[in-house]
């Protein structure tokens, strides 16, 4: 964010779906088809220990990822404590914990290769 004489210009907030890189989301959907079943109910984020103590929303991160927005994911995924409460409450059987582990692995591989 830039600051000009007291005015700030924020980054564009709009999700530009055409331009966004959705390859990580595609990989996840292939690897774990149950993640396609999320309906965004928020059960996972409501029970999430990390989310109750810090700025961390596993539901939203998952949805952002599906639109090709991975910045927040990179910044925040480490907050997860892998306790697994989220998957216990999911009404759609999304194995969120396994999903997080998969994403961890992919992101660190990407970082390693770059």
């Amino acid at each position, binding site marked *: 964010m830039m600051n000009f004489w007291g005015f700030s210009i924020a980054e564009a907030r*709009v*999700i530009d779906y055409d331009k966004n890189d959705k390859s990580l989301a595609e990989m996840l959907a292939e690897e774990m088809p149950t993640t*396609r*079943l999320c309906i965004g109910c928020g059960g996972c984020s409501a029970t999430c220990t990390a989310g109750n103590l810090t700025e961390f929303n596993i*539901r939203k991160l998952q949805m*952002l990822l*599906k*639109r090709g927005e991975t910045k927040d994911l990179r910044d925040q995924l480490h907050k997860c404590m892998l306790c697994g409460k989220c998957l216990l409450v999911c009404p759609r059987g999304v194995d969120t914990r396994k999903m997080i582990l998969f994403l961890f692995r992919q992101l660190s591989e990407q970082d390693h290769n770059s």
Partner: protein
Amino acid sequence: MSVIIIGAGPAGCEAAYQLAQAGEKVELIEQEAQPGGNLNNWYQLFPDRKSAQELNRQLILRLEHPNIRLHLGCMPTKIDRREGRFEVQLNDGALLTGQALLIAGGFQLFNAHRKEEYGYGIYENVITSVELENFFTNQRIQTSTGQLPKRVGFIHCVGSRDEKTCNFHCSKLCCVTAVKQAIELREILPEAEILCFYMDMRMFGPGYEEMYREAQEKYRIKFVRGRLSEASENKAKQVLIKAEDTLIGKPLKMTLDLMVLMVGMELSAGSRQLAEMTGIEKATNGFLRVKDPHFATNETNQKGIFLAGSCSSPMNLTDTLTDARSAALTIREYLKHIDL
């Protein structure tokens, strides 16, 4: 005893057959040249993907019952009540009489031109759910420029739940229709990206929620919660859309090769005319008002005049046929009563 039924869509056909089987004489009036109503525009039905024309054929076949007289291409021009009997004057000069009148005038689909900001009739690659059914019937899906669409968006609630179109009600069927059509589209376009833009997913019927799950997991349909605000067209004749991804809380824009508008249901013009001719009240959703929402779902504020099917509210085919059978029972009870 004889019963006059106006409208030979699924509700009118089913009620006619049930009454005829019970020994009543039925005069069945249809304004079109063939029976079947809106069913004539459909390809497959949810949730079992039954052929719509096969069901239609079965319904029409039963109209050959000797107690049924079918008046095709006819409209009532005058409806009178004399000494407890209804006299219906038809435009072809015939005069029909009956002890009870059943209105089965059905629904009509929302005219998508009225939702101008969605660009129907203005942008080439904006079509309605009915046009997509026609594509399915012909097994040919392509954009206006003759290409296979790579990204298709279904827009829910077009002309429903929208006070800007004066339709406050939920049309009930368009959510499941979108899911069904998205699945059918996937079978034809294995590589395309298919998205549904919804306000709420209303999967009310048996097997519907299961179909929604299957659409997500097996058929890779994506669902975005957010209402389309506006659409525009680019040089390549793609449709640019803007919506908010409300579960993320950010505005979203993307281009679609084909946009399908899930048009809602309204009371048909024919049903509206009948209501005016007979003094039947309308409910706040614009459909015809039933006498009691629990105990008298086929009766009206007018004695001897009954309703069947989607002229009283949006209904799927299962409910339409059930409602028609219920109307037939109610009418038989009524006829027994006036017999005394």
